[in-house]
């Protein structure tokens, strides 16, 4: 992940009218935004499209940037809205992109293969992720697939931090129940 101070400096200059700087900022954050889309259950093609749309919205709203705020949290807010719109167009998500899941199943390197989870269990976990309610899927993706802290997760989801914790607990219970049923 890019350094926050560098991103803040780039965003400050882009917001004050230097449009070329926004291109440099986009190059710094596009990989993170792409992974964010993948973690939210988009396919690789949809995640790439979501990156473009997120950057365009951020460019349009660059005047609304507040100095000192977290650039990634600000961008994740746009990205989450884009992801939600894409999910509305596609009623049932994939949970985990099939290519990513295939790579996970193929990956025999340590420590991935040493944790004792079988390929069938991983496939069941991906299916369970897709079956979660949208909010629970979002919070699991932010907290466990992107390792975002509670504050950034709450900012991205436009909700309170307590809501993030409660939703995460409910999501884990749901996932555990489904995995237990699978076992």
């Amino acid at each position: 992940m890019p350094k926050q101070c560098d991103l803040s400096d780039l965003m400050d200059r882009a917001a004050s009218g230097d449009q070329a700087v926004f291109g440099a900022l986009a190059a710094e954050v596009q990989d993170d935004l792409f992974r964010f889309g993948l973690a939210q259950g988009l396919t690789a093609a949809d995640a790439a499209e979501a990156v473009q749309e997120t950057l365009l919205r951020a460019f349009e709203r660059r005047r609304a940037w507040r100095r000192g705020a977290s650039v990634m949290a600000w961008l994740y807010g746009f990205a989450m809205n884009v992801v939600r719109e894409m999910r509305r167009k596609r009623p049932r998500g994939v949970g985990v992109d099939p290519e990513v899941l295939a790579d996970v199943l193929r990956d025999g390197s340590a420590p991935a293969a040493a944790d004792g989870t079988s390929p069938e269990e991983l496939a069941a976990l991906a299916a369970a992720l897709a079956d979660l309610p949208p909010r629970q899927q979002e919070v699991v993706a932010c907290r466990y697939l992107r390792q975002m802290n509670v504050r950034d997760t709450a900012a991205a989801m436009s909700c309170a931090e307590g809501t993030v914790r409660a939703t995460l607990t409910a999501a884990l219970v749901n996932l555990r129940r489904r995995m237990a049923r699978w076992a």
Partner: protein
Amino acid sequence: MMSGEDQIPEQEYDKVLKGLSRIAVQIERRKYPGHAWPALRVHERTGPRLIWFAIPAAAAMAAALLLAVVLRFAGQGTSPIGPQGGVATSSSADVSHSLALMVPDMSESLEAGELKMELPSISLPAAPSLSLPSAEITDGMTLSLPSLSLPSYGEKSGNNDS
């Protein structure tokens, strides 16, 4: 921790977290496959949009239609009530003519502030006379009825009883 039927073995909880961790590791290896910052799309998004042309065009069309309707009445010197007292707003000459005939012309009946309405006379067609053949008693005992003949329908002939 949960209790009762919601009790789930702890190892299943671990499996969920470990599975999520493996997926997270694989996602972290991915890179954005798209192009660099799309200057062309920014221009398309921030450039002039079709809506800014569509709104004035629609307003101009509405104004032109309104002006055409106003000029049509003003240019012909007509009012919604036709010269013969009938409703003349219809664009069809036949319809306006037939409507004018339905309303009586009262222009000649107005004299010195008096309103005299001359109702058109209505004459119903005369009812057709019905004449039944009379029956008569010829000799005080015998009633002779006129013979009734039903009209024949078609050229049916022969016996229908079979």
